């Protein structure tokens, strides 16, 4: 083996070793790296009891209820398998709307209600002009109404 080949092997071993070490470390910290957990995990009892954590999911359509004269808001977070009711008092981000993904942080209150102290909006990876979005919505509506019209 020439010296150059030996150096080549050394560089490869270095990268491989660091790669394996990183993979093992990340695997060990797997759960700590999750920024938020889903409603299904909360229902399955995986939420840390009595401790603050983050809950992420989709705001269920038609579930947002605002209290008159205050910033209190109530909604249901869902991952389409399970859902968790959330109460929050404060200013919501611009992108907060029904059918939109959000990440809330807080703790489980009584009766399985999540008491949020912060609500962040998670925007999707789709970018399109408003006319296209409207057209897509229109197309969806017509197809669903056609399906619904069938006997």
């Amino acid at each position, binding site marked *: 083996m020439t010296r*150059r080949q030996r*150096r*080549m092997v*050394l*560089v490869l071993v*270095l*990268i491989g070793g*660091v*790669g394996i070490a*990183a993979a093992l470390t*990340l695997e060990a910290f797997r759960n700590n*790296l*999750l*920024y*938020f*957990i*889903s409603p299904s995990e909360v229902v399955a009892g995986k939420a840390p009891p009595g401790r603050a954590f983050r809950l*992420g999911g989709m705001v269920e359509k038609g579930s947002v209820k605002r209290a008159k004269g205050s910033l209190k808001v109530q909604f249901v977070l869902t991952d389409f398998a399970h859902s968790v009711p959330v109460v929050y008092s404060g*200013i*919501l*981000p*611009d*992108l*907060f709307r029904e059918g939109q993904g959000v*990440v809330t942080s807080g703790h489980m209150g009584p009766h399985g209600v999540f008491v949020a102290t*912060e*609500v*962040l*909006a*998670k*925007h*999707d*990876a*789709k*970018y*399109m*002009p*408003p*006319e*296209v*979005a*409207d057209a897509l919505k229109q197309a969806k509506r017509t197809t669903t109404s056609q399906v619904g019209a069938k006997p």
Partner: protein
Amino acid sequence: MWLFFHKLGSPKHFYQLAGRMIPWFAWACALLMIAGLIGGLVLAPPDYQQGDSFRIMYLHVPSAWMSLFIYVTMAVSSAIALIWKMKMADIIAACSAPIGASFTFLALVSGSLWGKPMWGTYWVWDARLTSELILLFLYLGYMGLLVAIEDRRNAARAGAVLALVGVVNVPIIHYSVQWWNTLHQGPTVTKFGQPSIAASMLIPLLLMGLAFTLFYMTMVLIRARTAVLTQERRSQWVRELIEHHE
């Protein structure tokens, strides 16, 4: 091919070749950037959800791409320098670091400014944002290491090892949004199948990406030329060059 590789490795040939390439890269970069900016800021339609705020993407996304691209370039040059003992590869790696650090900083700041109106916060410690911050520290650590060690060859070797160790962070940054739940959204352009972005918005983004790449190439060649002159100041060809200028 090998001849080209060897010629590139010789400081004198690199100096001459880079000098001829710089104006081409610079002009191409300027034209593409103007086209990309007009396309992105004027011609592209506003987003259906984010309105005009999404336009910061034309700065944020290419910066983030470059932060990764430059790091990989640095790591590859470092590997070449370690294995083939090529002086020019060390110079390219060292000259790339401050440019890469600047792009990383730009990506973090523009992302933060974008996050406030859209997510509702400037910063969160999710996997994507945290790993990009670690990338900035890697760049800064690399630059610090090169300055801290006085002997030039030792400094280059230590820096090369650090650059190679740090390259493990690059796939982590790229895949962080798929491996873990993050506040940062998933990939838009590099998705399998169709990118989930309208063509009128995507084309300016790609133009900006190309313009940023050319900007990096222009900058790194200018910096490397200066570094070559400083390093080879005692050699015959540099002396002749200076006398010729006087």
